[in-house]
């Protein structure tokens, strides 16, 4: 199965496109942020996948093992996850403030409010 050999990449691409689609297609600001989260998740998989060597072990040097997985992608993605969480937090905080100011988190309703005023 050629296709299944790259299953990680397929999932990455699916998450990437699905997340981006949600961001573009949804007018609800919270849903947009969820889409953004899905989009960012695809990056985690993109980095982690090539770091894993099947049969490789954790990179703690020992005479019993010769094949080690690359630990660097995990560290990078830990950072990226923290960045993602921080982005989500700032985004949600903004949405809360927007809801207070406009009484709505639907983009079209906010747009209508701005342009009637």
């Amino acid at each position, binding site marked *: 199965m050629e296709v299944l050999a790259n299953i990680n990449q397929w999932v990455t691409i699916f998450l990437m496109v699905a997340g981006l689609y949600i961001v573009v297609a949804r007018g609800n600001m919270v849903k947009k942020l969820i889409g*953004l989260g899905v989009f*960012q998740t695809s*990056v985690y998989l*993109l*980095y982690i996948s090539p770091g894993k060597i099947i049969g490789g072990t954790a990179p703690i040097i020992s005479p019993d093992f010769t094949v080690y997985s690359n630990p660097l992608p995990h560290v990078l993605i830990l950072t*990226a996850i923290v960045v993602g969480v*921080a982005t989500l937090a700032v*985004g949600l905080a*903004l949405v809360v403030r927007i809801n207070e100011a406009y009484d709505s988190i639907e983009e079209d309703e906010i747009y209508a409010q*701005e342009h009637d005023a």
Partner: protein
Amino acid sequence: MSSLHLPALLVVVPLLSAPLCALLPGRLSWFVAVVVSLATLAITWAVHDRVLAEGVISYMIGNWPSPLGIEYRIDEANAFVLLLVAGVGAVVALWGRESVAAEVGRRQERWYWTMYLLALAGLLGVTITGDAFNVFVFLEISSLASYVLIGFGRDRRALTAAYQYLIMGTIGATFFVIGVGLLYTMTGTLNMADLAARLPLVEETRPVHAAFAFLVVGISLKLALFPLHLWLPNAYAYAPSVTTAFLSATATKVAVYMFLRFFLSIFGGAELFELLALPDILLVLSLAAIFAASTVAIFQSDVKRMLAYSSVAQIGYITLGIGIGTRLALTGGIVHLFNHAVMKGALFLLLGGIAYRIGNVTLDRLAGLGRRMPVTTAGIVIAGLSLVGTPGTVGFVSKWYLAQGALERGWWWLVALIVVGSLLPVVYLGRVIEAAYFRPAPADSALHEATPQMLVTAWILVVACVWFGLDTSLTVDVASRAAEALWRGQ
């Protein structure tokens, strides 16, 4: 501590002063911000001098050797950008005391300056680092801080503008990190110098092409290249004055630097740049930016929004320098990066002074301001002339080099377009000046000049507009060395 550690301190000082700022009582926060940004400027100056004297500086964070650990690597190009960011940062912080207290409120003041320092640290970090993933981390530090800085605006539309910027900015940063991830998969390194060395070996593979595309879109979103600029006008128009001045002068410029670093230094050896026709695309988009954004600017009645659109157009000139693709044009682009920061910084600070007195800066409210606030409006005229590109101001210098670059290629039509494009600011700035000098002031207004502190600091940038326009040796020399450094690659 010896001067050896200056590169680390450059980022660490603002980064750690930010939490300190949050801990101190509100009144002190501005003071901390000013002291820190001045200290940062001093450090940058020292680093810049050392780069000019000794060549490339390399610093290993945590003393991990270069390809393994994160390396800070400073050559002529990023030393120049660092100086620009720190310089604008210091001026804007000095300017901002009353403005932030008035627009953000005393209660939130310290959080504002905390975010300001974080944004400063992030921008310096993006510029100084020699590690592709580290760029992403610092980029997000500065971006997250700038979303908050914009959200502090008095107008509720600042919130939606910040949200919009957050969505676009995060998509941009994620595209960028996808590109970096693909490069890492193909080359096994994140160090920029290593990447540049290894990329030619794999340049014909599809992941590298995909990485290239992701990086182009990601960085272009951040630098507000023409069709990807939609987040910028609202974000700049509704943000507090200090935020607008700071971000317009630094954030997009740092993104331009990223663009140069990635596509000239890292991909430079791989010749993908030419292969995928990026210069031609850039050329078209830059011209579109110059004409479309300037035209839109003409029809704005909110002056901040007008200048925000003008920023999109001016970014077009910078990318034009990259698109033309000769060394002279690139020098012009880099000089314009500096010049645009200086003149837009000056304009937004002066407008901030007006906003401090009258609130919203719409054309109607500017009526008769030439007599009420003569020093401020005179500054706007000078910085505005510079934006147009009048000889004797900085705007002229960069356009001169761009035109020369175009001539090197024999593109007369482009020279003509640059000249015509320069006339558009005459129209929109003319509307501002007409309102300020030729319309009668409303009778009831008891308006007077902005505070002396605001005037003096904003005029530093106005004077710089003229100074660097007359004495081009400093900026052009440094910029051509920077262009040289970028071209040389690693």
